[in-house]
């Protein structure tokens, strides 16, 4: 049964979906503290099948299409629930399910004791199902459906603590802002549908939409598709939802930022490379958006004091890198294949270290009694030893420290952009993008290590909440223990809950939370060096996706991996300079940070307040729309309701005339009946 991927492909999204359904139905009443089991089992099983699918792709099943179900049919439109498997899908699947599994395991301890435990895991499982469905889809409608499913789950999870007004607002913002992008995606799909002879299958679209006479419409379609990606992957100007999405629980942040959700946009553009590479103007637009977002988010991240917000802006920035790479996939220079591979490579390495960083931040938050403001704790490297060294690995990987995973993928992207910045009409644009990417690399290193040093170095400072939190937590646990019997052996083995113990290590999270950190740290260390310089990743994508997929213009060109030594050295220097500056300003001479702040007060405030973009959008869009809504409310209230009320008065007038005959005398009614009958008879007789 496992020889042919067709036989188990559908199980990959189905198993998490089933897990979600089981938790949703039985979670509240029966599973309760065991609600994580179906979610983890579903995710791990999906991960196993994904690895199996990847080996199948490697052994030649690299253009598998599974289409056994018709979803709906109307006239010429025949939409099938079809799935496809190629190298791109396999890579995405393994990344999503692997990271997702570890996040689910981590969350089973992190969310322990939350009243919404079952709700959380039902949503996480559904999230994984949507995301795997999204990358497996073989036509745009299935992709769109899963895309919306991902949006829905992000809404449910960001607003998980919906009783908190800020969480509810963040969830609404995430949903509405990504919805703006979704409109673009839908318009793009409609344009593609019309120019490809009313088909939505990838292969047909890529073949027919490439016809030269459709080039203008195709450009618009690509712009709209990219708009969808901008919303989902939080690029400027729709990036504003992602930092606010930190209101959700930390595992959700990890899930959204690393494995699911934000990678959907990158995947979409990568999947549509055959279309994008035909319209270089749009590609330049993609690249500029990516570079600008990377620079903007990096600048904002420099001054944030909320640990998770620093990481959130760094995600926005790194996604900008990926789009910059995707936008640099120019056909002139046979860069397309290489650029896409670099973007996907960065997506994979980023998934590892960003999930690691978010889970580490969650571990800090868990230990510090839900305090996440970096000014309120410091010097935690002795208090949280395991969290400390895993966080350090994650930070180094993100900062592009040599030989760690972020270094390899970031270097590929810089090489691609540099390659694009000559011999083409947009060369100047790409050159500026390249400069922006280099500067961003330095800033990334600085803000990452700023966060690291502020959290783990300096004098040891633990906020008061940490103590009370642990006390309360232990109480709660005893309580839970009475109810659930022996159900939570492994949670109780964790030192976190032994509140009586005076040792400092009791702040450290439990083993269930530390193992995902260790595993992801190993990933962040090794993924880059195993897959990058060995060309494993690039060959895999090229041989089993680009060469076999329809519409790639230059699939035959071999990927010459541009290990551009000057660029490599340059980016490393930028990175090390950033790390050194952070060390200087936050460990060696803490006064330096304040001096810098004072000397560039204006810039500092712009960065701290996110360039006032939220306020700008509020004034430009939210308030006019609120005014319009208020006006329409008036129209509805006075005009529409008034008309309806006026019509409703007509029967009242008639009723007033007929009211006296209801006088309550039975005989009177009988007389009226008799007279009426007589009148009817007379009328019939005289007719």
């Amino acid at each position, binding site marked *: 049964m496992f020889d042919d991927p067709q036989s188990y492909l559908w199980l990959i999204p189905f198993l998490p979906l089933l897990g979600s359904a089981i938790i949703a139905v039985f979670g509240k009443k029966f599973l309760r503290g065991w609600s994580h089991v179906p979610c983890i089992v579903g995710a791990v099983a999906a991960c196993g099948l994904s690895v199996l699918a990847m080996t199948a792709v490697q052994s030649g099943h690299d253009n598998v299409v599974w289409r056994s179900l018709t979803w709906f049919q109307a006239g010429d439109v025949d939409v099938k629930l079809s799935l496809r498997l190629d190298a791109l899908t396999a890579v995405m699947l393994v990344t999503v399910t692997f990271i997702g599994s570890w996040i689910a395991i981590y969350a089973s301890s992190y969310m322990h004791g939350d009243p919404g435990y079952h709700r959380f895991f039902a949503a996480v499982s559904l999230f994984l199902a949507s995301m795997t469905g999204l990358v497996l889809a073989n036509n745009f409608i299935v992709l769109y459906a899963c895309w919306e499913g991902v949006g829905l789950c992000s809404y449910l999870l960001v607003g998980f603590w919906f009783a908190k007004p800020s969480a509810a607002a963040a969830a609404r913002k995430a949903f509405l802002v990504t919805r703006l992008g979704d409109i673009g995606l839908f318009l793009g799909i409609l344009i593609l549908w019309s120019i490809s002879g009313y088909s939505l299958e990838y292969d047909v679209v890529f073949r027919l939409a490439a016809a030269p006479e459709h080039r203008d419409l195709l450009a618009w379609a690509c712009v709209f598709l990219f708009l969808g990606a901008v919303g989902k992957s939080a690029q400027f100007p729709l990036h504003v939802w992602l930092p606010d999405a930190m209101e959700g629980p930390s595992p959700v942040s990890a899930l959204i930022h690393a494995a699911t959700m934000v990678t959907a946009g990158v995947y979409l553009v990568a999947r549509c490379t055959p279309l994008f590479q035909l319209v270089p103007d749009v590609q330049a637009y993609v690249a500029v958006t990516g570079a600008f977002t990377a620079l903007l988010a990096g600048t904002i991240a420099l001054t944030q004091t909320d640990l998770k917000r620093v990481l959130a802006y760094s995600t926005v920035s790194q996604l900008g890198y990926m789009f910059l790479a995707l936008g640099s996939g120019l056909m002139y220079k046979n860069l397309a294949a290489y650029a896409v591979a670099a973007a996907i490579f960065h997506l994979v390495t980023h998934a590892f270290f960003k999930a690691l960083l978010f889970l580490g931040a969650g571990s800090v938050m868990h230990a510090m009694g839900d305090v996440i403001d970096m000014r309120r704790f410091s010097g935690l490297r002795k208090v949280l030893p395991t969290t400390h060294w895993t966080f350090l690995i994650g930070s180094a990987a993100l900062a592009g420290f040599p030989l760690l995973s972020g270094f390899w993928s970031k270097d590929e992207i810089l090489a691609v952009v540099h390659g694009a910045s000559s011999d083409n009409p947009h060369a100047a644009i790409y050159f500026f993008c390249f400069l922006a990417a280099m500067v961003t690399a330095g800033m990334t290193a600085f803000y990452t290590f700023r966060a690291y040093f502020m959290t783990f170095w300096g004098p040891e400072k633990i906020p008061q909440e940490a103590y009370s939190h642990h006390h309360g937590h232990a109480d709660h646990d005893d309580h839970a223990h009475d109810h659930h019997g022996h159900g939570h052996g492994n949670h109780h083995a964790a030192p976190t809950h032994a509140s009586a113990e005076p040792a400092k290590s009791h702040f450290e999270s439990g083993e269930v939370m530390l193992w995902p950190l260790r595993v992801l740290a190993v990933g962040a260390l090794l993924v880059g060096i195993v897959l990058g310089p060995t060309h494993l990743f690039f060959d895999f994508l090229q041989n089993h996706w680009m060469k076999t997929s329809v519409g790639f213009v230059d699939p035959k060109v071999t990927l010459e991996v541009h290990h551009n030594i000057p660029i490599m050295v340059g980016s490393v220097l930028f990175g090390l300079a950033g790390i050194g500056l952070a060390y200087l300003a936050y460990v060696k001479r803490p006064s330096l940070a304040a001096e810098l702040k004072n000397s560039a007060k204006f810039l500092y405030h712009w960065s701290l307040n996110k360039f006032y973009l939220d306020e700008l959008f509020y004034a430009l869009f939210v308030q006019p729309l609120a005014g319009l809504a208020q006006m329409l409310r008036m129209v509805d209230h006075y005009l529409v309701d008034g008309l309806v009320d006026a019509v409703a008065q007509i029967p009242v007038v008639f009723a007033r005339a007929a*009211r*006296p005959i*209801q*006088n*309550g*005398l*039975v*005989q009177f009614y*009988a*007389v009226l009946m*008799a007279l009426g009958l007589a009148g009817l008879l007379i009328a019939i007789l005289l007719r």
Partner: protein
Amino acid sequence: MSSLALENYLIVGALLFVLGMIGFLTRRNMIIMFLSAELMLQGVSINLLAFSRFRGHLGGQALVMFILTVAACEAAIALAMILVLYRSRRTLDVSVWQDLREPTVDPILDPEPDLPIAPAPMPKLTPSGVEPKQPHETSHV
């Protein structure tokens, strides 16, 4: 058998119906009204039977069977309802229920005064219980 003409039966039926209707419209005692309604039903039944007999068609008789059944059910329900109404107002006069009219309509009052109702005589009970001891009768003969 068919010596009497159809009209005779119809006249009897019509008379019964009209008598019932007059009774229904003029009396206020709910039981009398109910009986009048039954009378109307019987008038209709005779009408149907007569037509059935003279036209040699059994449909009319079938309908009469239905009327009998319905009348029986109706008697059960109507009497039960009359009982309930009587219990709540302690009178069988249907005009006391005219307060179920529309709130804005004025009540219709009977201009004739009520006849004074003679108090019911106290019931005479047959003696019961242990018979008191009587002096033993002895014969003096």
